[in-house]
């Protein structure tokens, strides 16, 4: 990805280090692994409302509910 949301390091038993990248879903805040130059539609989708990459689970929900709004809602009304 151009701007990954996270970096991963897997350390094998034989000392090898495998590095990778993750992206953050703009709706749920979850991280998923991505391959270099992977397109948004291949990792889930690109929300055309908030223009952020989102995970397959949030794509299926079909609406735009950005994480920041969710956090505000949870803090006001509780998680439920």
């Amino acid at each position, binding site marked *: 990805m151009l*701007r990954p949301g996270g970096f*991963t390091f897997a350390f094998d038993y034989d000392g090898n280090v495998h590095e990778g990248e993750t992206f953050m879903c703009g709706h749920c805040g979850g991280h998923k692994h991505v391959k270099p130059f992977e397109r948004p539609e291949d990792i889930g989708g690109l929300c055309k409302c908030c223009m952020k990459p989102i995970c397959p689970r949030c794509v299926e929900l079909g609406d735009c509910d950005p994480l920041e709004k969710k956090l505000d809602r949870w803090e006001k009304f509780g998680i439920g």
Partner: protein
Amino acid sequence: MRYSSNNDLAGTKQAMAATYKTLVVLTAATATLTRGKVYDVLVGTNGTPADNPMEFDISRQTAAGTATAITPVSLEPGDRAAGTVGAANATAEGTITATSSVFYIGLNQRASYRWVAAPGSELVFPNTNLAGLALRARSATYTGTATGQMYHEE
């Protein structure tokens, strides 16, 4: 301010099973409701090395289970105490919100793993009482113990 929490700080590490066992959980504290951001996660095992499948997950928790309280360690000694409550090595699982996994990785038991957030992409939990993030592990075949470490800022 940045803090470190892991399941070696207190309590007895629990044997892995086919269902998730919470290693470390960070939740907003009643008295000092603070939004927290997890920016670094490290997981591994400390049992006899063998080829076993391991699964690690971070999900949102809304009610505490039974676990040993830990105090997140400030990374700068001059900082105030964390406004977040930590707990480790749960013997009874808390209430986990369904389909709320924000991080999931499958590993060989021999491997260890680190994830570091890019600035602005941390795992955020709200300043809602008892709400937080639980780092959990399970294995279909491994029955030893696992290690978990989360760094967070608030």
